[in-house]
Every structure is written in C-alpha cells, then in structure tokens.
C-alpha cells in the first residue's frame, strides 16, 4: 500500500471517529508523522481531487477519496485476517501496521483468495481495536472482571 493510500485510510477512519472533518493534528498523530509532513501529503491529495482541506476545520475526503480509502482499508483487513487466521500471528495488528507499506494491493488480493472475508468488509473495521470486528480471534482481549 503506498503512502497516499495509508493517508486516505487514516483520514477515512479519523473522519468516522470525529464524525466530521479530520483535523491535521489527529491525522499526523495517527500516522506518527509531523503535522508539516501531514500537511504536505494532504495538499497532494487535494491536488489529485481525493480530499478537501478547509482551514481551521480539517480534511474531508471526496467521493473518489472515499472509494480509494475503503479499498485501502479492505487491503488492511486482508493483511490482518491473513496474519491472524493463516499464519496464526498473535499480535496481528502490530504486524499488519508494519507490513501494510510493503504489501501491494494485488498481493493482498491474492492472499484474499484463501481467507474468508465477510461481505460487510471494510465496514467491519473497528478503529478502537484496530481490527476487523468479525475476526474469530479476540482482537482486544478484555480481562473478565472478578
């Protein structure tokens, strides 16, 4: 997944969480980059017609941006499901985050042929646990209260 797609995915999730435009600060925090770097990439996304940036309000994805962001989120879900269900990786979220930049969409599509993804993907993505909520493995184990 290229850097632009990682940004689009992040903006999509932040917009959903903030229920409105995504602030540059939140985007930068989520990506672990400086606000200046985030601003630069947001400018590029604007130039490509994928996002709109309104000063003091934040970033909103355009319809084209939303399509790309959902595709990227889907690719991310594929990587997570593959790591969790095929390779039995315990900390699949952390590894998926490390690997997403190196795994291309076409490769993810191939991996998708051996995992059972739900039709609602990527709406199944839960930003709180950073995982697909349909995964059979508990994404965020919660200790039962005694």
């Amino acid at each position: 997944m290229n850097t632009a797609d990682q940004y689009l995915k992040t903006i999509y999730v932040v917009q959903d969480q903030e229920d409105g435009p995504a602030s540059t600060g939140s985007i930068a925090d989520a990506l672990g980059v400086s606000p200046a770097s985030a601003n630069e990439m947001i400018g590029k996304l604007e130039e490509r017609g994928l996002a709109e940036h309104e000063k003091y309000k934040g970033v909103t994805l355009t319809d084209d941006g939303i399509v790309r962001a959902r595709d990227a989120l889907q690719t991310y879900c594929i990587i997570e499901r593959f790591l969790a269900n095929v390779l039995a990786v315990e900390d699949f979220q952390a590894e998926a985050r490390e690997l997403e930049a190196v795994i291309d969409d076409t490769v993810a599509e191939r991996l998708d042929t051996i995992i059972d993804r739900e039709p609602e993907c990527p709406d199944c993505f839960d930003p709180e646990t950073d995982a697909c909520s349909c995964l059979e493995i508990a994404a965020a184990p919660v200790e039962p209260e005694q």
Partner: protein
Amino acid sequence: MVVVSVSQRVASDDQLARLLQIGIVLEEVVEARTHRHYQQLDAELDEEVEQLLADAAEESAAHRERLETLIEDLGVDSVPFGEIESLVDARYGRTRPEDFDDVLYDQLCNEETAYKFYDDLIGAIEDSDVEFSIDREELVATLTAIRDEEAEGVREVTEVMERR
C-alpha cells in the same frame, strides 16, 4: 486509532521472515491452484496449457524451497503446504474454471502478483540499512533470481494467450 507505519522498508529480521513466509504462501497458492486446475481440466487438457501448468507448479515448488532455506537461516518455521492446499480447496471446492482462458488468466495473475511482491520486497530490503542475520547480498541475489523467473513466467503465459 493506532500509529501506522509509512515507511516502505524492511526494519528487522522478524519482519523479513514474515515477508518471506508470505512469499512461501503465495507460491503455495500457485501450486495448489495449478494442481487443482490441472485435475479439473484433465479430460480435455491441451498439451500447451498442460505443459505451462506443470512448469508453473514445478517453478513454484523450487521458489518455495529457496525461500524456505532463507527463513530457516533466520530461525523461523515456514507454513506447511498441506494447510494452504486445504484452504485453497475449501475456497475453490465449489467453483471450477470455465475454460482454458480462465486458467491462463489466473496463471497470468499469479505470475504478475508474484513479480510485484518480489520486486517490492527487494526495494524494501535495499531501502533498509538494517543488518540482517543472513547475508544481504545472497538474500537480494536469491530474490532477484526468483523475481526474474516470475517476469519470464508473465512473458510465457502472455505468449500462449496471444497464440490462442
């Protein structure tokens, strides 16, 4: 929301091993699907397609072995082929390729995807300044040889498709 990575480079032995495991699974998928197609179209198999599928399965097995040697040197287990085969079977048990064109198209996607995977992986290794516990030059040379064979595979399938 958790911090994601925006760097396209391989940062550790563990990450490298994981990517090599993914390469092994991709090769296993090719082997399992090729075998399946081969069986399903057996009754009316075209000699040229038959040869192409046999070569592809053999090449994938050879690539898998080379990747397995690399990850063994990194001290990581590979994914058993039987496991991937049953996953492919479970997913394709209900569907069949319609005709030779479907099989060839599938094979083209296999080769192109593998090429892209190895090409990206080589780039991510070259962009990294991490010292891996296996010899970097040998690693890159192995992956480059595999990638070039995938490129050759794309060319071969395309030629067969064009002739048909």
